[in-house]
């Protein structure tokens, strides 16, 4: 094993000082001379035909510099998914029809906010209201209002089907017939939002050279560029998306958003910079939120708890456009099949249009819902069979090297160890059932413990599929790292610097990062699908190694020694058998430049998951490989429930996880803590409430995210199954998304352990808990 200097160490984040002093520039802080305020007029109706738009009064208002409607656009649609089966389905500015409250119809740019607001009030739009539907199961019924025609490949007589995933293996019915226990349950998972602290913001400036410059709070600049260029009809090279700091995203800043397009269109019309910044209310009422999901789960098990078959049906409300709906129904299947062996499965998932706001990924993207359903039901099965929750999980957990139905392998999968370790550390077997024992007692506070298991994939093939990195060695041997990666708080720039510093043997302070600019940096997979450290990290490793090889070759020549006899230390290259024979990195750089007649020392590296796979797996049939890396974890939550108020408090969350190896343990812990907190909010308090397609709790007063008083005591156990060495690429796994799921499931099971209340609708708000307790009382009463 290499003696590592930086990788595997808790290096403080590189952008720490900029952020701690308020000097980090977020999009909202970008200010160019002559910047105008942009505002968007949104639909007040959930479903309507636009009969006419009159912007003449707004255009005449003093201080208004541009007004845009669909008439100014090329009417090119965009979508989170754009494939032959699922073509883009949303205009970037409404054309003739609106399908949700808040849909963007007109953009204005004015000298200040007052003028822009006044201009919006002067716009006259005539609508013809159309029937609307908001409940996903209602929207599927044959008589429901049609939002979009059902997908042509879907044969059932359902309406508004945006897409379907269908897959199966084995013989499910035969297995159910042989099973000693079959359970059927239906879970409803609520609509939530990301609650990134930085509201959406975009600055667009179409300059006089014909280039569109865009600063926008995003998770990947290359995806934004591609979608902006395409919808605006500009060459990719004429659209530059530049780096800004990102104030949290959690999945909510991936897609092209219509306000980004509108800011660009406004600037193209008036040739001045246009800044659109959402208010928090606008984020709630007009932005994209997380995917809700209904999960119908039927599981058959043998007497000993071995899963024999599962039949799963999921229904997703994608909102007024497809958004990521067809992805979440595909992923939900994967989150069902990855952690446990399921020898027979039949899966169908429907993504359904409604007149709600459009839905997009949120951290875990389907995993929290699927794992909530699967883990809750597994505990119910275990109880019926008289098996403890740890045993049933150990029995079904996949072992290292097991093949998955999509052709992937879980490879070095540490799940068994995770389950054992977390059970041991939390004294699970002794604590479990305390709720039941306490139930007889009179105390109003009940305690419970529960476990949740998840497996998550990382770095799949989605545009732009791969990452490239350049490492430049400057004349003094300081290092410039050039990457298209976006650091949205997870620490991408820090981790990439660790890798480059490690490969080159230079202090991490010597590595300057130049990132996230589509014009001056290299293509990057993006800060999503949980693959940045792996994909971009390996590209960075290769780039650094490439540069280092040039230095070593040159040093070998200079020192007149074989390159294999050289070693490096403190930015010096020396001969192993006579350490006094050495040259500095700076001397080697100079020698390389001299030898190559002026060519500077540049290393390049490229990396892509499963290079041999042509594209991403099929969203329709789930066929095709996902990834080479599956992380896994077992999480335990300990809760107390106040049976008088119904309030659940999560006291402790313990996570045993296999993320390969922790590249930067402090950052890894930060990811886990953040996910525990987000999971806690998801299962206990967060819910978007909707009345006729309009969000009626559009503020943090009415949408409760966890605060410091809700802080959960966390503990971690690393199950390390990978290593980092200098001579080949590394295989680390996901650490930024899936842990929400285990937390959600563990809390649900702990609430049951404490109270006997098994809830199948999230969040577990006090009223639902009390209702559950009341029903138990009624049963006992009889």
């Amino acid at each position: 094993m290499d003696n590592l200097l930086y990788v595997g160490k808790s290096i403080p984040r590189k952008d720490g000082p900029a952020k701690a002093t308020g000097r980090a520039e977020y999009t909202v802080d970008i200010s160019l001379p002559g910047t105008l305020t942009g505002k968007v007029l949104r639909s007040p109706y959930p479903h309507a035909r636009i009969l006419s738009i009159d912007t003449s009064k707004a255009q005449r208002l003093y201080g208004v510099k541009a007004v845009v409607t669909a008439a100014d656009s090329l009417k090119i649609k965009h979508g989170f998914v754009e494939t032959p089966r699922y073509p883009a389905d949303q205009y970037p500015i409404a054309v003739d029809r609106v399908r949700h409250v808040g849909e963007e119809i007109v953009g204005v740019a004015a000298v200040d906010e007052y003028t822009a607001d006044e201009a919006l009030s002067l716009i006259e739009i005539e609508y013809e209201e159309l029937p609307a539907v908001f409940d996903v199961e209602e929207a599927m019924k044959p008589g429901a209002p049609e939002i979009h025609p059902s997908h042509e490949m879907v044969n059932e007589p359902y309406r508004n089907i945006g897409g379907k995933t269908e897959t199966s293996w084995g013989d499910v019915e035969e297995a159910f017939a042989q099973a000693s226990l079959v359970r059927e349950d239906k879970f409803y998972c609520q609509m939530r939002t990301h609650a990134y602290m930085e509201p959406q913001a975009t600055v667009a400036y179409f300059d006089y050279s014909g280039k569109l410059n865009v600063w926008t709070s995003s998770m990947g600049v290359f995806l934004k560029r591609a979608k902006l260029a395409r919808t605006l009809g500009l060459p990719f090279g004429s659209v530059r998306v530049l780096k800004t700091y990102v104030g949290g995203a959690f999945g909510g800043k991936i897609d092209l958003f219509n306000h980004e397009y509108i800011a660009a269109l406004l600037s193209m019309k008036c040739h001045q910079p246009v800044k659109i910044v959402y208010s928090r209310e606008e984020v709630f009422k007009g932005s994209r939120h997380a995917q809700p999901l209904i999960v119908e789960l039927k599981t058959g098990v043998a007497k000993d708890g071995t899963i024999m078959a599962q039949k799963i049906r999921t229904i997703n409300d994608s909102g007024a456009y497809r958004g990521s709906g067809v992805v979440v129904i595909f992923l939900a299947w994967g989150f069902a099949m990855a952690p446990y062996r399921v020898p027979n499965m039949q899966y169908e998932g429907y993504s359904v249009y409604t007149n709600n706001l459009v839905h997009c990924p949120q951290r875990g993207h389907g995993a929290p819902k699927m794992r909530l359903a699967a883990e809750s039901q597994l505990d119910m099965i275990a109880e019926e069979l008289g098996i403890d929750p740890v045993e049933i999980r150990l029995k079904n957990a996949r072992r290292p090297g097991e093949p998955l139905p999509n052709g992937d392998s879980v490879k070095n999968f540490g799940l068994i160890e995770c389950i054992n370790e977390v059970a041991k550390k939390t004294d699970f077997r002794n604590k479990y059932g305390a709720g039941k024992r306490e139930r007889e007692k009179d105390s109003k506070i009940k305690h419970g413990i529960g476990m949740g298991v998840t497996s998550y994939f990382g770095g799949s093939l989605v545009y732009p599929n791969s990452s490239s990195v350049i490492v430049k060695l400057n004349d003094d041997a300081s290092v410039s790292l050039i990457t298209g990666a976006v650091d949205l708080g997870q620490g991408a720039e820090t981790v990439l610097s660790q890798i480059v510093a490690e490969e080159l043997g230079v202090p991490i302070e010597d590595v300057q990062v130049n990132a996230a600019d589509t014009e001056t940096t290299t293509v990057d997979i993006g800060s999503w699908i949980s693959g940045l450290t792996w994909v971009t990290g390996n590209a960075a490793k290769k780039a650094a190694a490439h540069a280092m090889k040039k230095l070593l070759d040159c040093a070998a020549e200079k020192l007149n020694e074989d390159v294999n006899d050289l070693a490096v230390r403190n930015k010096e290259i020396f001969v192993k058998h006579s350490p006094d024979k050495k040259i500095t990195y700076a001397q080697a750089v100079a020698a390389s430049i001299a030898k190559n007649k002026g060519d500077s020392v540049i290393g390049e590296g490229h990396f892509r998951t499963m290079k041999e796979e042509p594209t991403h797996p099929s969203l329709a049939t789930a066929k095709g490989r996902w990834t080479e890396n599956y992380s896994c974890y077992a999480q335990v939550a300990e809760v107390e429930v106040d049976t008088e108020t119904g309030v659940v408090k999560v006291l402790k969350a313990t996570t045993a996880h296999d993320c390969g190896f922790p590249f930067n343990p402090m950052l890894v812990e930060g990811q886990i803590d953040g996910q525990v907190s987000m999971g806690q909010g998801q299962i206990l308090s967060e819910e978007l409430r909707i009345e006729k397609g309009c969000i009626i709790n559009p503020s943090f007063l009415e949408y409760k995210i966890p605060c410091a008083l809700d802080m959960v005591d966390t503990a971690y156990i690393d199950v390390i199954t990978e290593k980092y060495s200098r001579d080949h690429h590394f295989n680390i796994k996901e650490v930024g998304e899936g842990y929400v799921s285990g937390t959600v499931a563990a809390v649900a099971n702990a609430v049951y352990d404490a109270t006997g209340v098994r809830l199948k609708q999230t969040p577990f708000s006090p009223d639902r808990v009390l209702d559950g307790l009341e029903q138990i009382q009624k049963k006992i009463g009889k």
Partner: protein
Amino acid sequence: MKKSQKQLISLKINGQEYELAIHPNRTLLEVLREDLTLTGTKEGCDDGVCGTCTVLLNGAPIRSCLYLAIEAQGKEVTTIEGLAEGERLHPIQQAFIEHGAIQCGYCSPGMILTAKALLDKNPTPTEQDIKLAIAGNFCRCTGYNKIVTAIKAGCQSAEGGQ
């Protein structure tokens, strides 16, 4: 909306006096960010809920999105820009960096100032004191654990520095 008459005010921010002509309905947050380009102070909700826009007024944390700039006259305003001395970070800023209390960083200026106000008043807070003090400062990234750790460490290093 009809604009009101501008008023001449003077503000003392981070020890520096500023004279400004502003509309009286403008918040301290707006004036800090737009007129004085002290953009370290961030807006998170404009409702006074999330605490992102926290600044110190005579040493006590306030929501600058709910506070009119004209009311800050005659008071000492401290923003995040006023904490470090040149390149030398305040011990709390240092502790936030060293203990992983910063992720996306958007809540950090408000969080750090709230922590400073707490430690100035109570140099040896309990964990519960810390949680209570920052209960009105939302963070979506960290789950608060490392922030609490950093504030504990910050009070120790502040003591050590004295």
